[in-house]
């Protein structure tokens, strides 16, 4: 079926596309506004970008409230009436529970990322926010895409601006960006090759049809089924790179450390969530007939990812590198429910992604606010500072220290970080009900390993020995201490200076939002846990899907 014939007669549901259109338009508007603003007003661009994202969020909320039982489809193959379940089989853009949840997630996460950024480092504001919004557009499309072409284009839209964003990093930014770029295109090439094999075997790029075609070919067996199987595995590589699952994780620590901290946060949450969305969509919708064999592969991938991530994180001495390896490990946890092939456990993965986004952004936010500041502090403390620089932070900035400790405990999954505990329970529960108990045990051991390094960092914050005590005396009159001479006290300095402007407020606001969300989710995690409990209802063919 020639694609040109299809696109000629499609009707497009623009309300469904509204969040994407707003973001893409906003990106252009920001770039344009950059040309007309004088240099000292450029910081307003970040508030403009924020406005764009909030508008998209509002559109998203409108889509939430106007939800009917059916998903909203657009860009459908001709002949299929929009709105009927069967038509979802060959639509390129579908808005269902999954899409709504993930789109809300990436939008809300980007709000926090934007809040982290302003004036924190010397970047061209226009380009920075244009690239960020462009990348976000890619993420928004990716989670709604239901065919391989759209998903690939979206993945590239997500990635290309990200390379440039990484390059803004002050120290090793260029090198990190190049590394990121090279590894990314290599994995995309492999993925495209895989998709071409799958297309060859099934004759379609739409997930629903691929799934039907795969059941057909695997029933027939022979060379065609093998080709399709190889294609499926190769396709997953591209997403494996995005989520930094272990054989494809090598870029992660370098890139995070080289990039500006907000961009590291963006990569670890938004880009990763989008990558997981792609993985979930392809595995659950397109490759469902192969899920039994892919499940084993994913299980091994999960086990290796979490173990390698955690073990290497143990040895890290710098804050951002530690967070980078911890995100590798956390990716392993998210993979666990996907490895369950007996019953549908996707909702656990999505719940984990949502909760993880909050706590990880919170941790990055505090690190960024504390040590990513402009001026000497950043030069002295590249990539978020050494862990030792956090010694006695509680004396200096009790609220920031408490927030960081709380987020770290959330990541570790230990009360008072009840939210993190709930996330872990969701994954454990999926593994236990799905009969991959061995994976659950591997994860249990990993949780203990992870606790060690999170807790070590958290304990350092409250440490009063030596350095911390010394600092307490030297900074008794805080105004006398120049900002950043001993670690960093930018905040107290900024608070005392007469120009307490919006840019110093924004990071605090970001951390505050993350903290509030974390507290809410600790007591009421139901929105995250139930978000996609009924997904994907379109493929409710198997008894497993009906059991959910």
């Amino acid at each position, binding site marked *: 079926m020639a694609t040109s014939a299809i696109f000629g007669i499609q009707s497009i549901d623009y309300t469904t596309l509204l969040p994407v259109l707003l973001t893409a338009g906003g990106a252009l508007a920001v770039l344009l506004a950059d040309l007309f603003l004088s240099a000292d007003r450029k910081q307003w661009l970040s508030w403009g970008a924020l406005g764009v994202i909030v508008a998209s969020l509002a559109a998203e909320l409108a889509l939430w409230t106007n939800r009917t039982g059916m998903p909203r489809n657009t860009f459908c193959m001709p002949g299929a009436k929009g709105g009927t379940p069967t038509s979802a089989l060959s639509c390129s853009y579908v808005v269902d529970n999954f899409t709504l949840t993930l789109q809300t997630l990436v939008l809300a996460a980007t709000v926090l990322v934007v809040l982290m950024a302003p004036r924190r480092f010397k970047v061209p504001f226009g380009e920075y926010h244009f690239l960020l919004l462009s990348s976000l557009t890619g993420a928004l499309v990716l989670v709604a895409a239901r065919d391989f072409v759209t998903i690939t284009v979206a993945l590239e839209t997500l990635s290309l601006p990200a390379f440039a964003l990484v390059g803004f990093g002050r120290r090793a930014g260029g090198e990190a960006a190049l590394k990121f770029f090279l590894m990314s295109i290599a994995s995309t090439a492999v993925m495209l090759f895989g998709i071409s094999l799958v297309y060859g075997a099934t004759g379609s790029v739409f997930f629903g049809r691929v799934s039907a075609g795969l059941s057909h070919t695997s029933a027939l067996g022979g060379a065609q089924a093998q080709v399709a199987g190889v294609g499926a595995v190769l396709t997953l590589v591209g997403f494996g790179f995005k989520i930094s699952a272990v054989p494809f994780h090598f870029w992660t620590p370098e890139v995070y450390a080289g990039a500006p901290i907000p961009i590291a946060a963006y990569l670890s949450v938004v880009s990763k969530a989008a990558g997981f969305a792609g993985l979930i969509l392809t595995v659950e919708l397109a490759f469902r007939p192969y899920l039994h064999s892919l499940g084993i592969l994913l299980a091994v991938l999960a086990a290796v990812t979490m173990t390698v991530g955690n073990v290497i994180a143990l040895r890290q001495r710098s804050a951002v590198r530690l967070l980078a390896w911890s995100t590798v490990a956390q990716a392993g946890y998210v993979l666990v429910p996907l490895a369950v092939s007996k019953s549908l456990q996707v909702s656990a993965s999505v719940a984990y992604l949502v909760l993880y986004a909050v706590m990880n952004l919170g941790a990055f936010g505090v690190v960024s606010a504390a040590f990513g500041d402009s001026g000497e502090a950043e030069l002295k403390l590249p990539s978020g500072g050494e862990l030792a620089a956090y010694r006695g932070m509680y004396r200096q900035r009790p609220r920031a220290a408490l927030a960081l400790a709380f987020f770290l405990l959330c990541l570790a999954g*230990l*009360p008072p970080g*009840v939210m993190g505990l709930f996330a872990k329970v969701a994954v454990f529960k999926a593994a236990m*009900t799905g009969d991959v108990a061995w994976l659950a045990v591997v994860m249990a051991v990993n949780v203990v390993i992870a*606790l060690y390094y999170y807790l070590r960092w958290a304990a350092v914050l409250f440490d009063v020995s030596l350095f911390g005590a010394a600092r307490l005396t030297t900074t008794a009159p805080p105004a006398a201490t120049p900002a950043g001479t001993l670690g960093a006290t930018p905040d107290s300095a900024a608070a005392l200076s007469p120009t307490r402007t919006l840019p110093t407020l924004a990071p605090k606001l970001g951390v505050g939002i993350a903290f509030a969300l974390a507290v809410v989710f600790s007591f009421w995690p139901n929105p995250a846990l139930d978000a996609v409990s009924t997904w994907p209802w379109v493929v409710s063919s198997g008894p497993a899907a009906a059991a959910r």
Partner: protein
Amino acid sequence: MATLLVLLLALPAAGLVVLYALPARQAARVGAGTGTLVFLLSLVLLPLFDYGHAEQMQGQLNVPWVPAFDLRFHLGIDGISLPLLLLTTLLSALCLLYAVRTTAKDESGRAFTALLLVLQIGMVGTFVAQDLLLFFIFFEIVLVPMYGLIHRWGSGEERRRAANKFILYTLLGSALMLLGFLLIHAKAGTFDMVALAQRHGLGLTIGVQEGAFLLVGLGFAVKTPMWPLHTWLPDAHTSAPTVGSVLLAGVLLKMGTYGFIRIGAGMVPLGAHRFAFALGCFGTVGIVYGALACMAQARRGGDLKRLIAYSSVGHMGFVLLGVATLTRVGLDGALFASVAHGLITGLLFFIAGGFKERLGTTDLYTLGRGLYERARRYGVLIVFAAMASLGLPGLAGFWGELYAIIGATKPAPGLTSLGFHILMALAGVGMILTATYLLLVVRRLCMGAVTGPNGSTRYEPLPDLTPRELISWTPLAGLTLVAGLWPAVILALADPAVHHVLGGAR
């Protein structure tokens, strides 16, 4: 009564808020006030409790919390939880009172008090939760505060390592325990502890029960602690501040035995039956090992706190032996011994803390001798606690261990009788060894002449008991005596409930 249970959890939380609303120097007083209030409130439970139906879960509150997990906020108490709950609130109150003039009085007192209050929420919650997942959450809440107490306020070079060891060990255990709970839920379809106890394993295959008991039991075994998973305990106790040690020994270890009784024996009985003898063996090894380790500590270079910690391993060995018999008598004994150990070891750690305060050390040989002369009442109290700990009839330590041994004479049907008789004999040897080391300690500390042969003073006199110490310690000593002379106070409560746990009187 349900309101009261919620209040017991909410009050410490409210205390936390007040703590940070008031200036830092009021912290210790706020803590002490909250602790006392919670204890008084828990006393109100006594007249409200229906003693005729001690086996029934009373004062239940059951509201859904997280439907996706089937997690419900389900509270309730019965004859098993009530004594442990009262022990918890009592020890917390005493610790918070004690801390007013010691640890909590310096500038970091607010954080210290806050950790104690969070700890209290976790401890109380563990004993009143009637939903497995809720139980797990409360079980985990205690970890971070205790870690903080050891890591920040502990003493010695090793305190950070000890704190890490404590939390990593316990977390590994509890992560496996969570898997066990989830396994039970996957097969039985509920986390409701009341319903699961009612079913008494009905509907769970042997394989599931064995797997679940193994996973859950590992978690509790680390917490109890069972030999050979006990190695975190001596380090943690040696390093912890006094109130940390008291709560760790007095309450936190009981969470393990409580779990063994209610969840292990009560919900997966076939699994418990399968591993009962192994549990008994490990328990008995713990008794003998603990006693031998204590004898080693009683020699030169030994440390009083470490000695008490090892003695805990021995005493908890008796508790495990009692549980392992899976009989009414044995479980009664285990529960009684748990409470008694909480009182006695709490007292012993307070005494050791007193030494630490007076002399700055707990090294047995630097403490000096002749305490009868140097600080008369202090010495007498040590003897009293030591006698209680070695199981002198008439004091609390006696009944629990006696019952555990009686239970071993006739273990539950299907368990190897001969094996348990051997264990019983070994436990008897352990009792003798226990008496030996405690008498060694008493001789070392309390006896001996203060003046040398030429009339010179060999040991400085010590300040005797202060009023503050009297307030914190006499309740423990008094209850040790009461429970020893009138064991029925606890047994009358526990026995019907234990009978219910074992599947009787359904």
